[in-house]
């Protein structure tokens, strides 16, 4: 046995592979002793990883990239050898905003372009009436939630910095904030969307998979220096996570996985709510309408665990689009180097797959090409970046 590892996580369903790896014994089987530490903020997870209080962490993919780039914070290169989740977020709106959107909706209500256009009309009407701009909650400046909300609304010409307000809210505060009218909508991971629906105060407007078919969400993050020094531990950790992900994705194990995740010192919510997320069958409105999606949250299936550097480049492009950084060739390279499929393949002792990873399938804009981020961004009208 090596020295015990301290790994930080935020209580969200996409920490599943990490939690199950430890609590179901996959980590121990790899000779690892792990202490999971539940955290309350992404800032804490990032800082404790950066200064070495954690050996590894469940981290928002964009935070890992921002850390390597030194954006908004100190520069600490991060290596991500395992993808903890693909997709998994949803946009939930208040009953009032839902009604307003549905009134303006002209077509398929699950088509994000249709709802974004409806949003544009609601925003215009509110402005004309002198009402306050709509407020959207998201989890962090460098978060998939921030970029997904922006990507969606900007497709219909809604400027996320001018036409609405985007505010950061810790996930556990989302539901309360929607209930008391502090925000009109939010984008967050499981289980918070389902909890808002169960309480009758929110409607799930979109699964993020409506907006981007395949989007990297959380990663297993390591300090690059630490990863370089401990290649065997990294490989064991990846194998444990892969086995845990396989376990979770087996429909026969879903109930047990949900029960493990529901423990009070893990995610600490009802197992049934967690299971809904894992199976991708979610109640989307308080009156009991369910919606099913095969790609709501991917923990291990369809090669979800293998980090894809193109995903990192896409996230970097969003940072550029919204003015968080400027586009440079080095920046793209640094961002892509965070995602480490080589460590993943190495841990499993296999060659890189010959099949290309799943594409984003964004509902708007041209196909993404990491070699031409400038050209890609030029195709979008709304943005904060300078050419």
């Amino acid at each position, binding site marked *: 046995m090596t020295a015990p590892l301290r790994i930080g996580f935020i209580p969200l369903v996409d920490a599943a592979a990490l939690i199950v790896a430890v609590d179901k014994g996959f980590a121990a089987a790899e000779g690892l002793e792990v202490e999971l530490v539940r955290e309350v903020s992404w800032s804490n997870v990032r800082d404790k990883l950066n200064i070495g*209080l954690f050996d590894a962490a469940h981290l928002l993919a964009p935070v890992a990239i921002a850390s390597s780039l030194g954006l908004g*914070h*100190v520069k600490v290169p991060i290596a991500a050898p395992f993808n903890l989740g693909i997709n998994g977020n949803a946009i939930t709106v208040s009953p009032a905003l839902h009604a307003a959107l549905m009134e303006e909706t002209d077509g398929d209500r699950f088509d994000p372009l249709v709802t974004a256009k409806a949003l544009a009309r609601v925003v215009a009407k509110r402005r004309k009436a002198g009402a306050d701009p709509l407020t959207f909650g998201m989890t962090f400046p460098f978060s998939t939630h921030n970029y997904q909300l922006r990507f969606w609304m900007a497709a219909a010409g809604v400027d996320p910095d001018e036409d609405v307000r985007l*505010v950061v809210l810790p996930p556990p*505060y989302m539901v309360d904030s929607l209930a008391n009218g*502090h925000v009109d909508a939010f984008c967050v991971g499981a289980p918070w969307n389902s909890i808002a629906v169960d309480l009758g105060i929110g409607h799930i407007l979109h699964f993020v998979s409506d907006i981007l078919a395949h989007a990297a969400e959380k990663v297993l993050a390591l300090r690059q220096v630490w990863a370089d020094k401990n290649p065997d531990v990294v490989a064991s950790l990846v194998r444990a996570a892969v086995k845990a992900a396989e376990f979770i994705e087996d429909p026969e194990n879903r109930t047990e996985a949900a029960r493990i995740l529901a423990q009070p010192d893990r995610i600490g919510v009802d197992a049934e709510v967690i299971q809904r997320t894992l199976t991708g069958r979610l109640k989307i409105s308080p009156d009991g309408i369910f919606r099913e999606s095969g790609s709501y949250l991917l923990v291990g299936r369809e090669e979800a665990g293998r980090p894809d550097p193109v995903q990192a480049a896409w996230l970097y492009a969003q940072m550029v689009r919204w003015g968080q950084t400027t586009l440079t060739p080095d920046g793209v390279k640094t961002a892509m180097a965070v995602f480490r499929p080589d460590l993943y393949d190495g841990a499993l002792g296999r060659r890189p797959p010959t099949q290309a990873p799943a594409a984003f399938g964004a509902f708007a804009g041209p196909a993404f090409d990491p070699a031409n981020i400038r050209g890609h961004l030029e195709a979008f009208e709304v943005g904060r970046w300078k050419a």
Partner: protein
Amino acid sequence: MSAEQSPKIVIVDESPIRAAILEEGLREAGFTQIVHISEMQSLLARIYAVDPDIILIDLENPSRDVLEAMFQVSRAVRRPIAMFVDQSDSSSIQASVEAGVSAYIVDGLRKERIKPILDLCVSRFNAFAKLQEELERTKSQLEDRKVIEKAKGILMKVKGLTEDEAYVLLRSTAMREKKKIGEIAQSIITASEMLK
């Protein structure tokens, strides 16, 4: 801000006792402009209104992520930066994280002015944690005593033991099972309630 003027310090803490301990320490050290915020709903608005030079926040407070957003869009206040951005003094950063306090400072504030404030916070946070630990221990000792008394009573009644014999039985069982005597006492109470 002139060098002589006391910096404006905001303490973001939901624990009123710890915030008071911290505030007292800062005042004793000669800092006069201190504002305590305990309400998280309108955190950013409150901070914008105060326009502080230094923000101190408890690491257990999820609203740290809200503060991070201020680095990105900070039109209303002078742009704050994280204490961590300057890694020249990594031991004090480590000490503060371990104590559970984080600091954000407004760009331009001189470094030597921050160090004593942070050191003071760390020692006050540690003192508070110790105090709380002692309180918890006393509380659980009191609780244990009550539980043991009750379990003794049950053993005396059911098994016809004297008080001393009941205690010896509890203690030897606890030693054999490598558990606390309070835990054994609690399981006796639970079991007897189930058998009622």
